[in-house]
C-alpha cells in the first residue's frame, strides 16, 4: 500500500462566508484580482452578492471576465489570459460551477508557466510552479472542483476535451457560502448532487482508496443521502444547502487523491457525444457502474451501507446489494423531484452513438483507477443498463 494525499486548500464555509474573502486576499497581498464568472451567475444576481462583500474595502474588483461558456474552451481561457496580462492582475477568483473553476485553473497554469500555449501543458504533474493566488467560489454543490487538481478544457481545434492534472492546480482558498447556492434550479441541484455522490462512492471503492479518502467519502455519502432530497425540494433550505456544500469538497478531496472510476469514464464519453451536462451523465451511469463493481467491492459497499441504513443486518453480500438498492431508491426519488432524465434515450441517445461512446470511454483516464477492467463488453453492458 502506498498513499500520497494532498489537501492544500483553505476551506471557509458557512452562512456569510463570502464576507471573509477580502481578508483572505489581503492576507495574500493581493491588489488586483481578475474575477472569472459566466452570464448565468451575473443574471442570477450572485455576482452582486459577492461584490457586496467588497463594498467597504479597497480592493479593485473591476476586472471581470464573464464570457465563460457552459463547457469551457481553450479559446475562453486564452481570452481570460489576455485580460489578466493586459490588466496586470495578480490573483484569480473563480465564481461559478465546474466550468468557471476549471477556467481559473487553466488560467493559473498559463500565468505561472508564462505561456499562452495551453495544450503544451496537458497531462499529469506537468506543471512546475504554483503561480498566483487562486480562490474558488463554487455556486453549485457537486463538482468538488474547488479542492481538486484536475481541469478539463474543450479544444475546438481537435474537437476533444483536454485533461490537466497537477497539485499546483488546487485552489488556495475555497469559499463555500450556502447563500450563493439557494438560487440553483432543482435539476442542477440534483445533477451536481449525484456527481458528488459518484465522487464519494468511486473514491471509496477505487484501487487507490485509502483510510483518509475513505473517511471523507463515507461522511460525504451520509451528508448527500441525508440532505440532497431536502435541497431539491426546498432550495431555500440553507441547512440542506450548507450540508451539500460540505459534502461536495469532502468527496472532492477523496476523489482528488483516490480518483474516480468507470462511472466517470462512461459519463465523460457520453457527455462528449450527447452534449449533456456532466452531472446528468453521471446520474445515468451511476447505478450501472456500481453494479459492475459489485463483485469486487462487496466489502466497501457493505461498509458504505452504514452511512445510509445503519439498521440493516445481513451478510456482506446482502449488505452490498442493499447499498445498491439505497442508491437506486435515491436516484428514483431525485429523478421524480427534479426531472432528471431516467435513461439515455431521453437525452437523444441513438444506437449509432454506442461505438463512439465506448471508444472515448476506453481512453478516459478515470478507468485506470477502477478495480474493474473497463473493456468494450463492460462499457456496452453499462450503456444497455442505462438506456
Amino acid at each position, binding site marked *: 500500500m502506498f498513499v500520497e494525499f494532498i489537501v492544500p486548500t483553505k476551506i471557509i464555509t458557512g452562512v456569510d462566508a463570502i464576507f471573509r474573502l477580502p481578508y483572505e486576499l489581503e492576507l495574500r497581498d493581493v491588489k488586483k484580482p481578475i474575477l472569472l464568472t459566466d452570464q448565468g451567475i451575473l443574471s442570477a444576481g450572485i455576482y452582486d452578492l459577492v461584490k457586496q462583500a467588497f463594498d467597504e474595502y479597497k480592493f479593485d474588483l473591476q476586472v471581470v471576465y464573464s464570457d465563460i461558456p457552459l463547457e469551457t474552451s481553450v479559446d475562453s481561457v486564452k481570452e481570460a489570459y489576455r485580460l489578466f496580462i493586459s490588466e496586470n492582475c495578480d490573483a484569480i477568483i473563480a465564481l461559478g460551477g465546474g466550468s468557471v473553476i476549471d477556467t481559473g485553473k487553466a488560467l493559473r497554469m498559463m500565468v505561472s508557466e508564462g505561456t499562452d500555449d495551453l495544450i503544451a501543458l496537458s497531462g499529469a504533474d506537468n506543471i512546475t510552479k504554483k503561480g498566483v493566488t487562486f480562490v474558488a467560489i463554487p455556486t453549485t454543490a457537486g463538482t468538488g472542483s474547488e479542492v481538486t487538481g484536475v481541469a478539463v478544457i474543450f479544444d475546438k481545434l481537435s474537437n476533444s476535451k483536454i485533461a490537466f492534472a497537477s497539485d499546483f492546480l488546487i485552489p488556495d482558498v475555497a469559499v463555500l457560502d450556502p447563500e450563493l447556492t439557494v438560487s440553483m434550479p432543482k435539476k442542477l441541484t440534483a445533477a451536481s448532487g449525484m456527481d458528488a455522490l459518484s465522487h464519494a462512492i468511486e473514491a471509496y471503492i477505487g484501487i487507490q482508496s485509502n483510510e483518509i479518502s475513505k473517511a471523507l467519502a463515507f461522511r460525504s455519502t451520509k451528508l448527500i443521502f441525508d440532505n440532497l432530497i431536502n435541497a431539491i425540494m426546498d432550495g431555500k433550505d440553507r441547512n440542506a444547502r450548507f450540508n451539500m456544500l460540505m459534502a461536495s469538497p469532502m468527496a472532492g478531496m477523496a476523489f482528488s487523491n483516490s480518483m474516480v472510476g468507470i462511472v466517470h469514464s462512461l459519463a465523460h464519453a457520453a457527455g462528449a457525444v450527447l452534449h449533456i451536462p456532466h452531472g446528468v451523465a453521471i446520474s445515468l451511469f451511476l447505478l450501472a457502474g456500481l453494479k459492475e463493481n459489485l463483485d469486487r467491492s462487496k466489502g466497501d459497499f457493505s461498509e458504505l451501507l452504514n452511512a445510509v441504513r445503519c439498521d440493516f443486518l445481513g451478510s456482506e453480500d446482502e449488505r452490498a446489494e442493499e447499498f445498491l438498492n439505497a442508491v437506486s431508491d435515491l436516484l428514483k426519488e431525485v429523478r421524480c423531484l427534479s426531472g432528471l432524465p431516467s435513461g439515455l434515450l431521453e437525452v437523444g441517445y441513438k444506437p449509432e452513438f454506442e461505438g463512439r461512446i465506448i471508444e472515448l470511454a476506453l*481512453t478516459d483516464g478515470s478507468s485506470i483507477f477502477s478495480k474493474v477492467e473497463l473493456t468494450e463488453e463492460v462499457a456496452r453492458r453499462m450503456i444497455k443498463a442505462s438506456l
Partner: protein
Amino acid sequence: MCKLIKSKVLVLKILLDVFEKALVFLFLDDAEFKKMLLKADVDCFTIRVLKTDFLVNVTIKRDGLFVDKSKSKCELEIIFKDLCTAFKTFSGLISLEEAFAQKGVILKGSIAKALTVTRAIKRLQTLVFPDIWIKRVLKNFKGTSMPEKLVFYKFYYYYLKNLGR
C-alpha cells in the same frame, strides 16, 4: 523492497533491457499489441525515470518499432518520479496503472493517448511475465492462452539469443 536501491539499479537496467526488447519483439510478433500501440496514435513516446539516465525512447511506425537512446523530444512522456516506483513497475510488482494511481508518474502529453499506451504495456506485462507472477497485479487477469504462452517462450528465446546486442 527498495532499501537496497543500489543493487536494484543493476536489476532495473536489466529489466529495462528486457522491456525494450519486448516492445520491439511484440510489435512484430503480437498483432494485438501492435494494434493497441498504433491505436494510441503517437509517433514517439518516452518512458524514463526523473533525473536519471534510465530511458526508453520509442519511435513507432506502421512497419516497425524502434528504440533509441537519444533524448529527442517525444509527444508523450511517461516519467517515473523515483527509481523505486520504476523498479516495481518494470519487475511486475505493480502495474503501470497502479504507478499512476500512486501518483508515481509524471505525464507530459495527452492523458487519453497515455492510457492507450498503458493498456499496451499491460499487454506486454501479460506476455513477458509468467502468469503466476503477474496475476497478482493485473485487474481481471484470467491467465494467458496457449498462443500467448507460445509468445512468452518465443520472446525469451529471442531475448537470450540477442543478449548483449
